[in-house]
């Protein structure tokens, strides 16, 4: 069943929704990366919550004009207009008053959402048939979706994705280094507006699938997850799109193949699973890699200090050092050095003495800056330089 859903074998509508969710996920992941790199990730939270009054007003206006209040294009148009107003309100509060952007975001999202709730209760009292369903925009619902709606979402997702791909270069440059982008002739204001426009497009298209409370997750989680894997902005964008797309695809498929599983939360949780994997397993920035690095570093420090102690004939009491020396075959359990241990200890001592010469000589300042008590001098200086240092090291000994 799940396999069928993943391979689009569950009927035309479910397939359209899955495709739409995948396109939406990719678009959200890519767009979200620019937001994240601009450090404005939570602006999307204000935008998404600000869609609610627009949806409700569009319904009321459509019904008042005698139309069908549930028409998805009308509702999405309304949501786009009020999301735009919300965005303008955030910008205005953050730039024209002394309020910081986070306060502006929180104020706009709570007030617009509160107004939306008021309008929803107004609609409930209008006693118009077919009002049920507006609540679906809170959490998304793909069950019982009309074919035209599924088509709209698939097309909307694809269009948003296409726009994102077209605009990715200026957005990437702006997100990464605004000053440089400006110097290269990118219009910063227009790029920012385009980026926010894309965020709005993602939000509006995602309303029906993910719902307005959780759409922000699709804009935030994939970029944060992708950031663990690479330091290169273009790769982060690509990965984020992949993670977002995979979340949309798998999440929609799980939701389509099981009963009573709402689409939005499942997509978000799939994204979070991918985030957790990245958080723990990514090389370099991941938690496990960091822990392994820290442990390897500790080992090297203990081993080095243990060898130096052996070289100076000092007894070792520290248990980790003893264990490491024993495991390397440098010493017995009691800390008495083996032959290999004596040799390694002598090498460590020699290296330390060479470093002492380097650090005492101001003309070798640059090399001395690399001293960390672990790196062998041969890795910093050439063999000739080391030999020269050895000759200098020998002289004071010869003098005594």
């Amino acid at each position, binding site marked *: 069943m799940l396999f069928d859903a993943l391979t689009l074998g569950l009927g035309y509508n479910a397939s359209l929704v899955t495709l739409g969710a995948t396109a939406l996920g990719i678009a959200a992941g890519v767009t979200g990366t620019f937001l994240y790199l601009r450090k404005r990730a939570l602006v999307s939270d204000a935008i998404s919550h600000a869609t609610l009054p627009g949806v409700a007003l569009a319904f009321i206006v459509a019904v008042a004009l005698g139309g069908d209040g549930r028409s998805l294009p009308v509702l999405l148009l309304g949501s786009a207009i009020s999301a735009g107003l919300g965005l303008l309100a955030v910008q205005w509060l953050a730039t024209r008053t002394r*309020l910081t952007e986070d306060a502006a975001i929180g104020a706009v999202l709570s007030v617009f*959402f*509160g107004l939306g709730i008021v309008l929803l209760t107004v609609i409930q009292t209008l006693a118009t048939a077919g009002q049920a369903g507006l609540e679906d925009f809170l959490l998304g619902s793909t069950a019982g979706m009309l074919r035209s709606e599924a088509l709209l979402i698939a097309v909307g997702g694809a269009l948003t994705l296409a726009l994102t791909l077209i605009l990715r270069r200026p957005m990437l440059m702006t997100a990464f280094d605004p000053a440089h982008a400006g110097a290269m002739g990118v219009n910063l204001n227009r790029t920012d507006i385009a980026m926010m426009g894309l965020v709005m497009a993602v939000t509006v298209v995602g309303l029906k699938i993910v719902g307005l409370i959780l759409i922000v997750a699709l804009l935030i989680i994939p970029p944060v997850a992708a950031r663990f894997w690479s330091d290169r902005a273009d790769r982060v964008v690509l990965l984020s799109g992949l993670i977002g797309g995979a979340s949309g695809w798998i999440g929609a498929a799980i939701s389509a193949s099981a009963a009573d599983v709402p689409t939005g939360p499942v997509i978000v949780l799939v994204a979070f699973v991918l985030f957790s994997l990245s958080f723990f397993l990514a090389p370099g920035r991941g938690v496990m890699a960091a822990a392994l690095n820290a442990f390897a570093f500790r080992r090297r420090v203990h081993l080095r200090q243990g060898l130096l102690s052996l070289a100076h004939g000092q007894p070792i009491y520290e248990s980790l050092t003893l264990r490491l020396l024993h495991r390397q075959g440098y010493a017995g359990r009691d800390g008495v050095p083996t032959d290999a241990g004596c040799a390694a200890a002598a090498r460590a001592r020699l290296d330390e003495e060479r470093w002492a010469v380097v650090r005492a000589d101001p003309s070798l300042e640059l090399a001395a800056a690399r001293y960390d008590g672990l790196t062998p001098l041969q890795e910093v200086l050439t063999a000739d330089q080391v030999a020269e240092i050895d000759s200098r090291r020998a002289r004071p000994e010869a003098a005594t």
Partner: protein
Amino acid sequence: MSGAEFVPLSLAPLVIGVLVAVTCALPGNFLLLRRQALVGDAISHVVLPGIVAGFLVSGVIATWPMLLGAAGAALLAVVLIEAIRRLGRIEPGAAMGVVFTTLFAAGVLLLEQSDTSDVHLDVEHALYGNLESLIWLDATGWASLLDPAALAGLPPELFRIAAACALVTGLLAIFWRPLKIATFDEGFAASLGLPVQAISLGLIVVAAIAAVAAFDAVGSIIVIAMFICPPAAARLMTDRLGAQVAWSVAFAVVSAVAGYVLAGYGPLWFGARDAVSAAGMIATVSGLILAIAALAGPRRRPLQPRA
């Protein structure tokens, strides 16, 4: 309107609304100044999974398991945000976004999967509460305020939010000076020997207490609005912390009263029969106050005027 109608139907929700607004606005002032305004947003989202988990573990719709679950979830969220921020070196806003959306999604999924259809627990209720339903059936008029038998019938939410309000107010009063110093100049506070980390965590715990107690009564949207809008509007009125807190309390009270009255009686003035959501209306009124302050507040200008 006569007391016989007002006291049973509107007094308790009105008082609860005012208490909620004040309880949230007080810590909101400090969160705002510390640029942590969205902590209230995050906490109020994660309350949902906490309440659902509390219900699933205890199996009953009782207050204490759900409050404990909510508090646990809030704590878990704070720990997760800090862990992701520190271990993953992710900026705080994004870390917050990851955690609260995920926990909220988990809460929704738990709710849909568990058999809660026969009990009064749903997402809409969690979002915008049901302030209007907290009526005081035992009351017959103003005289009931002096009648112990009738007083015992007050909604229990009233006592809980009153206790939370007293607790939050008391804590802020006791720790006013260290909190003030640590908020404005953390480095100076640390050099005085103040435990800045503990103060920061303590503030978030107080915010969580306020959010959970308020959520119990009115749902999360009003909580977010009250955490941010009254303090933000107050920030545009004055440059003094004491005055800002006073303004924010005043704005919170006005929002709660005006919002409740508009929601309950406003539609009647337009000839409609039914009231609209009081929680939504309170949030809307607080937004209007903020808008007015942003347009006309004496201290609204940016701190560093743009060249």
